[in-house]
Protein backbone atom coordinates (compact mmCIF):
# COMPACT_ATOMS: atom_id res chain seq x y z
CA UNK A 1 0.00 0.00 0.00
CA UNK A 2 2.67 2.46 1.07
CA UNK A 3 4.74 1.45 -1.89
CA UNK A 4 1.84 2.07 -4.24
CA UNK A 5 1.30 5.48 -2.70
CA UNK A 6 4.99 6.21 -3.15
CA UNK A 7 4.86 5.34 -6.82
CA UNK A 8 1.78 7.45 -7.39
CA UNK A 9 3.29 10.41 -5.56
CA UNK A 10 6.58 9.95 -7.39
CA UNK A 11 4.82 9.83 -10.73
CA UNK A 12 2.90 12.99 -9.90
CA UNK A 13 6.09 14.74 -8.78
CA UNK A 14 7.90 13.80 -11.95
CA UNK A 15 5.08 14.62 -14.27
CA UNK A 16 4.39 17.95 -12.58
CA UNK A 17 8.06 18.88 -12.71
CA UNK A 18 8.27 17.91 -16.34
CA UNK A 19 5.24 19.98 -17.22
CA UNK A 20 6.42 22.89 -15.10
CA UNK A 21 9.77 23.14 -16.81
CA UNK A 22 8.31 23.01 -20.31
CA UNK A 23 5.65 25.68 -19.78
CA UNK A 24 5.84 29.02 -21.48
CA UNK A 25 3.71 30.83 -18.98
CA UNK A 26 5.55 31.31 -15.71
CA UNK A 27 2.48 31.25 -13.47
CA UNK A 28 1.28 27.97 -14.91
CA UNK A 29 4.72 26.53 -14.44
CA UNK A 30 4.75 27.63 -10.83
CA UNK A 31 1.47 25.94 -10.06
CA UNK A 32 2.77 22.68 -11.47
CA UNK A 33 5.93 23.12 -9.46
CA UNK A 34 3.88 23.54 -6.29
CA UNK A 35 2.10 20.31 -7.12
CA UNK A 36 5.43 18.60 -7.55
CA UNK A 37 6.65 19.93 -4.21
CA UNK A 38 3.48 18.78 -2.48
CA UNK A 39 4.00 15.31 -3.93
CA UNK A 40 7.56 15.28 -2.65
CA UNK A 41 6.30 16.41 0.76
CA UNK A 42 3.93 13.48 0.72
CA UNK A 43 6.83 11.17 -0.04
CA UNK A 44 8.68 12.62 2.96
CA UNK A 45 5.68 11.75 5.03
CA UNK A 46 5.69 8.21 3.67
CA UNK A 47 9.40 7.96 4.49
CA UNK A 48 8.71 8.63 8.14
CA UNK A 49 9.81 12.21 8.13
CA UNK A 50 6.67 14.15 8.99
CA UNK A 51 8.63 17.17 10.15
CA UNK A 52 10.45 17.36 6.83
CA UNK A 53 7.13 17.02 5.04
CA UNK A 54 5.66 19.95 6.93
CA UNK A 55 8.73 22.08 6.29
CA UNK A 56 8.62 21.23 2.61
CA UNK A 57 5.03 22.42 2.39
CA UNK A 58 5.35 25.48 4.58
CA UNK A 59 8.66 26.82 3.35
CA UNK A 60 9.15 25.41 -0.10
CA UNK A 61 5.68 25.19 -1.53
CA UNK A 62 4.54 28.04 0.64
CA UNK A 63 7.10 30.73 1.15
CA UNK A 64 9.55 30.25 -1.70
CA UNK A 65 6.98 29.64 -4.39
CA UNK A 66 4.94 32.57 -3.21
CA UNK A 67 8.07 34.66 -3.58
CA UNK A 68 8.19 33.57 -7.21
CA UNK A 69 4.53 34.41 -7.70
CA UNK A 70 5.11 37.78 -6.13
CA UNK A 71 7.96 38.66 -8.46
CA UNK A 72 6.15 37.41 -11.53
CA UNK A 73 3.17 39.55 -10.57
CA UNK A 74 5.42 42.56 -10.04
CA UNK A 75 7.01 42.08 -13.43
CA UNK A 76 3.57 41.79 -15.01
CA UNK A 77 5.03 39.64 -17.75
CA UNK A 78 1.87 38.74 -19.61
CA UNK A 79 2.64 36.90 -22.79
CA UNK A 80 5.74 38.84 -23.71
CA UNK A 81 8.73 36.71 -24.45
CA UNK A 82 6.52 33.83 -25.50
CA UNK A 83 7.83 33.88 -29.04
CA UNK A 84 11.43 33.67 -27.93
CA UNK A 85 10.63 30.84 -25.58
CA UNK A 86 8.89 28.94 -28.35
CA UNK A 87 12.18 28.73 -30.19
CA UNK A 88 13.65 27.00 -27.21
CA UNK A 89 11.39 24.04 -27.89
CA UNK A 90 13.20 23.50 -31.16
CA UNK A 91 14.98 20.09 -31.13
CA UNK A 92 18.33 21.56 -32.14
CA UNK A 93 18.36 23.41 -28.84
CA UNK A 94 17.49 20.58 -26.52
CA UNK A 95 18.84 17.48 -28.21
CA UNK A 96 22.45 17.64 -26.96
CA UNK A 97 21.68 18.65 -23.36
CA UNK A 98 19.03 15.93 -23.27
CA UNK A 99 21.47 13.31 -24.43
CA UNK A 100 23.98 14.39 -21.80
CA UNK A 101 21.36 14.28 -19.09
CA UNK A 102 20.16 10.92 -20.33
CA UNK A 103 23.67 9.50 -20.00
CA UNK A 104 23.92 10.88 -16.47
CA UNK A 105 20.53 9.45 -15.65
CA UNK A 106 21.39 5.99 -16.98
CA UNK A 107 24.62 5.98 -15.01
CA UNK A 108 22.77 7.04 -11.89
CA UNK A 109 19.96 4.51 -12.30
CA UNK A 110 22.23 1.58 -12.93
CA UNK A 111 24.33 2.41 -9.90
CA UNK A 112 21.41 3.19 -7.65
CA UNK A 113 19.75 -0.07 -8.60
CA UNK A 114 22.65 -1.91 -7.01
CA UNK A 115 21.90 -0.56 -3.53
CA UNK A 116 20.92 -2.98 -0.82
CA UNK A 117 17.48 -1.99 0.43
CA UNK A 118 17.53 -2.60 4.14
CA UNK A 119 14.52 -1.53 6.10
CA UNK A 120 14.76 0.32 9.32
CA UNK A 121 11.48 0.96 11.06
CA UNK A 122 12.17 4.24 12.83
CA UNK A 123 10.07 7.33 12.41
CA UNK A 124 12.17 10.36 13.15
CA UNK A 125 10.10 12.77 15.15
CA UNK A 126 10.29 16.52 15.24
CA UNK A 127 11.55 16.31 18.79
CA UNK A 128 14.61 14.31 17.80
CA UNK A 129 15.36 16.75 15.03
CA UNK A 130 15.04 19.60 17.46
CA UNK A 131 17.45 17.92 19.84
CA UNK A 132 20.16 17.36 17.29
CA UNK A 133 19.52 20.77 15.77
CA UNK A 134 20.47 22.35 19.05
CA UNK A 135 23.04 19.69 19.89
CA UNK A 136 25.72 18.91 17.33
CA UNK A 137 24.17 21.20 14.74
CA UNK A 138 23.85 24.30 16.86
CA UNK A 139 26.58 26.05 14.90
CA UNK A 140 24.82 25.25 11.65
CA UNK A 141 21.80 27.14 12.93
CA UNK A 142 23.94 30.10 13.85
CA UNK A 143 25.70 30.12 10.50
CA UNK A 144 22.38 29.71 8.71
CA UNK A 145 21.19 32.86 10.45
CA UNK A 146 24.18 34.73 9.02
CA UNK A 147 23.40 33.25 5.64
CA UNK A 148 19.86 34.56 5.81
CA UNK A 149 21.20 37.94 6.87
CA UNK A 150 23.45 37.96 3.82
CA UNK A 151 20.51 36.99 1.62
CA UNK A 152 18.39 39.71 3.17
CA UNK A 153 20.96 42.44 2.74
CA UNK A 154 21.85 41.37 -0.77
CA UNK A 155 18.27 41.01 -1.94
CA UNK A 156 17.32 44.31 -0.32
CA UNK A 157 20.13 46.12 -2.06
CA UNK A 158 19.73 44.49 -5.46
CA UNK A 159 15.97 44.71 -5.55
CA UNK A 160 15.90 48.42 -4.71
CA UNK A 161 14.73 50.74 -7.42
CA UNK A 162 17.37 53.14 -8.54
CA UNK A 163 17.20 56.56 -7.05
CA UNK A 164 15.76 59.31 -9.22
CA UNK A 165 19.19 60.79 -9.82
CA UNK A 166 20.66 57.56 -11.12
CA UNK A 167 17.74 56.97 -13.41
CA UNK A 168 17.97 60.42 -14.92
CA UNK A 169 21.67 60.00 -15.47
CA UNK A 170 20.93 56.70 -17.08
CA UNK A 171 18.33 57.93 -19.47
CA UNK A 172 20.13 61.13 -20.27
Amino acid sequence: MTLALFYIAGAIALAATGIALTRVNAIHALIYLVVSLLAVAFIFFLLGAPFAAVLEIVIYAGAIMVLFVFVIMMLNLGNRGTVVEQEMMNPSVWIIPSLLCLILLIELSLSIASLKSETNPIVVSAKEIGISLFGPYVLAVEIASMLLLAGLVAANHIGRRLSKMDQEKDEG
Partner: protein
Amino acid sequence: MNPLIIPLSHVLMLAALLFTAGLLGLLIRRNVIFILMSLEVMLNAAALAFVGASAHWGQTDGQIILLLILTIAAAEVAVGLGLVLQIQRRFKTLDLDVVSRMRG
Protein backbone atom coordinates in the same frame (compact mmCIF):
# COMPACT_ATOMS: atom_id res chain seq x y z
CA MET B 1 1.73 2.45 8.61
CA ASN B 2 5.15 0.93 8.25
CA PRO B 3 7.10 3.76 6.70
CA LEU B 4 10.04 1.87 5.37
CA ILE B 5 8.67 -0.56 2.95
CA ILE B 6 9.85 1.88 0.33
CA PRO B 7 13.28 0.72 -0.88
CA LEU B 8 16.02 3.32 -0.66
CA SER B 9 17.04 2.70 -4.24
CA HIS B 10 13.61 3.73 -5.47
CA VAL B 11 13.69 6.97 -3.54
CA LEU B 12 17.13 7.72 -4.89
CA MET B 13 15.94 6.87 -8.37
CA LEU B 14 13.11 9.37 -8.09
CA ALA B 15 15.59 11.93 -6.77
CA ALA B 16 17.92 11.23 -9.69
CA LEU B 17 15.05 11.66 -12.15
CA LEU B 18 14.05 14.97 -10.59
CA PHE B 19 17.68 16.10 -10.53
CA THR B 20 18.21 15.37 -14.21
CA ALA B 21 14.91 17.03 -15.04
CA GLY B 22 16.10 20.14 -13.22
CA LEU B 23 19.49 19.99 -14.92
CA LEU B 24 17.84 19.64 -18.29
CA GLY B 25 15.63 22.63 -17.58
CA LEU B 26 18.70 24.61 -16.55
CA LEU B 27 20.50 23.72 -19.75
CA ILE B 28 17.60 24.32 -22.15
CA ARG B 29 15.61 27.23 -20.77
CA ARG B 30 16.82 30.76 -21.39
CA ASN B 31 14.25 32.59 -19.30
CA VAL B 32 15.85 33.55 -16.01
CA ILE B 33 12.76 32.73 -13.97
CA PHE B 34 12.62 29.23 -15.38
CA ILE B 35 16.31 28.79 -14.78
CA LEU B 36 15.76 29.68 -11.13
CA MET B 37 12.90 27.19 -10.98
CA SER B 38 15.15 24.48 -12.43
CA LEU B 39 17.66 25.32 -9.75
CA GLU B 40 14.95 24.81 -7.13
CA VAL B 41 14.05 21.46 -8.65
CA MET B 42 17.69 20.35 -8.48
CA LEU B 43 18.05 21.46 -4.87
CA ASN B 44 14.77 19.76 -4.01
CA ALA B 45 15.97 16.53 -5.62
CA ALA B 46 19.08 16.63 -3.44
CA ALA B 47 16.86 17.23 -0.41
CA LEU B 48 14.72 14.23 -1.34
CA ALA B 49 17.80 12.04 -1.60
CA PHE B 50 18.96 13.24 1.81
CA VAL B 51 15.63 12.57 3.48
CA GLY B 52 15.43 9.15 1.84
CA ALA B 53 18.91 8.22 3.01
CA SER B 54 18.21 9.66 6.44
CA ALA B 55 15.15 7.44 6.74
CA HIS B 56 17.22 4.49 5.60
CA TRP B 57 19.79 5.06 8.32
CA GLY B 58 17.24 6.16 10.88
CA GLN B 59 19.17 9.34 11.52
CA THR B 60 18.20 12.94 11.91
CA ASP B 61 21.17 14.28 9.92
CA GLY B 62 19.57 14.01 6.50
CA GLN B 63 16.52 15.93 7.61
CA ILE B 64 18.67 18.64 9.10
CA ILE B 65 20.41 18.95 5.77
CA LEU B 66 16.95 19.37 4.25
CA LEU B 67 16.40 22.24 6.62
CA LEU B 68 19.68 23.80 5.54
CA ILE B 69 18.85 23.27 1.88
CA LEU B 70 15.56 25.09 2.46
CA THR B 71 17.45 27.97 4.01
CA ILE B 72 19.92 28.09 1.15
CA ALA B 73 17.19 27.84 -1.45
CA ALA B 74 15.26 30.64 0.18
CA ALA B 75 18.25 32.94 0.33
CA GLU B 76 19.31 32.13 -3.20
CA VAL B 77 15.84 32.66 -4.59
CA ALA B 78 15.52 35.95 -2.77
CA VAL B 79 18.72 37.27 -4.29
CA GLY B 80 17.97 35.66 -7.64
CA LEU B 81 14.53 37.21 -7.87
CA GLY B 82 16.00 40.56 -6.89
CA LEU B 83 18.31 40.19 -9.86
CA VAL B 84 15.35 39.20 -12.03
CA LEU B 85 13.61 42.44 -11.11
CA GLN B 86 16.66 44.51 -12.01
CA ILE B 87 17.26 42.60 -15.22
CA GLN B 88 13.69 43.16 -16.35
CA ARG B 89 14.05 46.86 -15.56
CA ARG B 90 17.34 47.27 -17.36
CA PHE B 91 17.10 44.92 -20.31
CA LYS B 92 13.30 44.73 -20.73
CA THR B 93 13.67 41.00 -21.21
CA LEU B 94 14.42 37.94 -19.13
CA ASP B 95 16.21 36.04 -21.86
CA LEU B 96 19.66 35.13 -20.57
CA ASP B 97 21.09 35.05 -24.10
CA VAL B 98 20.07 38.66 -24.61
CA VAL B 99 21.53 39.61 -21.25
CA SER B 100 24.84 37.95 -22.12
CA ARG B 101 26.95 40.51 -23.87
CA MET B 102 30.42 39.72 -22.66
CA ARG B 103 32.29 37.44 -24.99
CA GLY B 104 35.80 36.26 -25.64
